[in-house]
């Protein structure tokens, strides 16, 4: 009985995937051009992220604060990092969509730069996805582990991807891919990422 129910679930998963692919093929996504990138980006403060993931900072908080206060502070820091990863994931989505459109270019150098940017953007999405899942779980469980162990520095790596390093690499790749922009627009892009 259990195997039949499982088989039906797998068939349903396959059928939903077929419908999704049909939808992808049917709806031609509007191509995101260079004008649809900068206004859609959310700035990510990398130095703030670095400070949140710093083990020394976390140790200092634990040393100075009483357990209930530390716990409350940790939750606030987690929520803050959750917001930063949300922005990272959003920016990566925008850049992936732009890179998709750039791949239609006749210039092989632009195509190559778009590919390099897209690779980094996909890595950032993967990192953000796993990190946000962990953070949401920790916030949901209100685990006691938050008062006894350093947790935020563990979020630097997910799936063998160093999140902040990869995001910085994405910024460099984006600067290279958008090098044809006017200097003020390029400046705006680097500030928005």
């Amino acid at each position, binding site marked *: 009985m259990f195997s039949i129910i499982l088989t039906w679930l797998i*068939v349903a998963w396959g059928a939903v*995937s*077929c419908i999704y692919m049909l939808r992808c093929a049917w709806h031609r996504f509007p191509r995101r051009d260079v004008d649809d990138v900068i206004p859609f980006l959310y700035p990510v403060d990398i130095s703030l992220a670095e400070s949140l993931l710093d083990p020394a900072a976390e140790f200092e908080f634990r040393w100075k604060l009483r357990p209930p206060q530390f716990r409350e502070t940790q939750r606030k820091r987690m929520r803050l990092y959750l917001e930063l990863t949300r922005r990272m994931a959003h920016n990566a989505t925008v850049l992936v969509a732009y890179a998709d459109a750039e791949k239609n270019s006749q210039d092989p150098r632009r195509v190559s730069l778009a590919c390099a940017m897209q690779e980094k*953007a996909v890595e950032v999405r993967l990192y953000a996805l796993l990190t946000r899942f962990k953070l949401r779980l920790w916030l949901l469980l209100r685990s006691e582990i938050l008062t006894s162990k350093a947790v935020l520095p563990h979020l630097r790596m997910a799936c063998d991807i160093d999140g902040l390093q990869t995001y910085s690499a994405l910024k460099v790749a984006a600067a290279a891919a958008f090098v044809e922009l006017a200097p003020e627009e390029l400046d705006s892009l680097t500030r928005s990422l």
Partner: protein
Amino acid sequence: MKLLVWFIPLGLLASLLWLLIRKRAYEACPCFFSYVAFAVAADVARFVALNYPRPYFATYWITEAGYDLLGILVMYEVLRSVLGNLTRAWWARLIFPAFLVAGVGMSLARANVIPSRLGGIEFYIVIGEIAVRFVQVFVFAGLVTLVPIVGLRWRQYPFGIATGFGLYATVMLLTTIKFSDFGTRFKLSWGWTSLVAYSVAVLIWIWFFSVPEKISTSSRELSAPSPGVLKQYKDALRRMR
């Protein structure tokens, strides 16, 4: 009418093989190319042996076993090419074996619930066939799930291959479940459903391979940017710091 049933998938597979050769797809997807070449040869062999029951019986089961083996190899190729670009994590290498174990487990569990009338080697070939269908659905549905989550581009060869197999495998699993409910009364619909699903799968492959795949990795052999472009790039990096 029977000839038409033979000729539709065979004609579509021959067109696909010609397209794969023309697009040099054997370089990008060697296992899938082998699968299509084998499918054309297997269909021709079955057609030739159609009026000779014993040779047809042997040809049918040998080619079914070949389909099982190549089907698994194609899924391995698809998963390796998509995940290879996505992550270098150690556990990524365990995904395919996990799918394989789950597929075989589901197939054996099914055989336990609904005993087969087949015996000997044919029984194991059918078990393998159902396991391959499960693996194909796992790979296809898993990759499609990654499209909205990670932002993967779906218009690429491995996704096309997985979509064709995924659609066919989903329909065949569904008809297998229904077949166990209705018994031999379901035979006619089984044949037609299988034919239509397989033809649609081949059409999907033709559609995906008819468009040239865009460059998916950055080239290391491109010419250096001009000094002006390099200066702009350096300025941008300086502002970023």
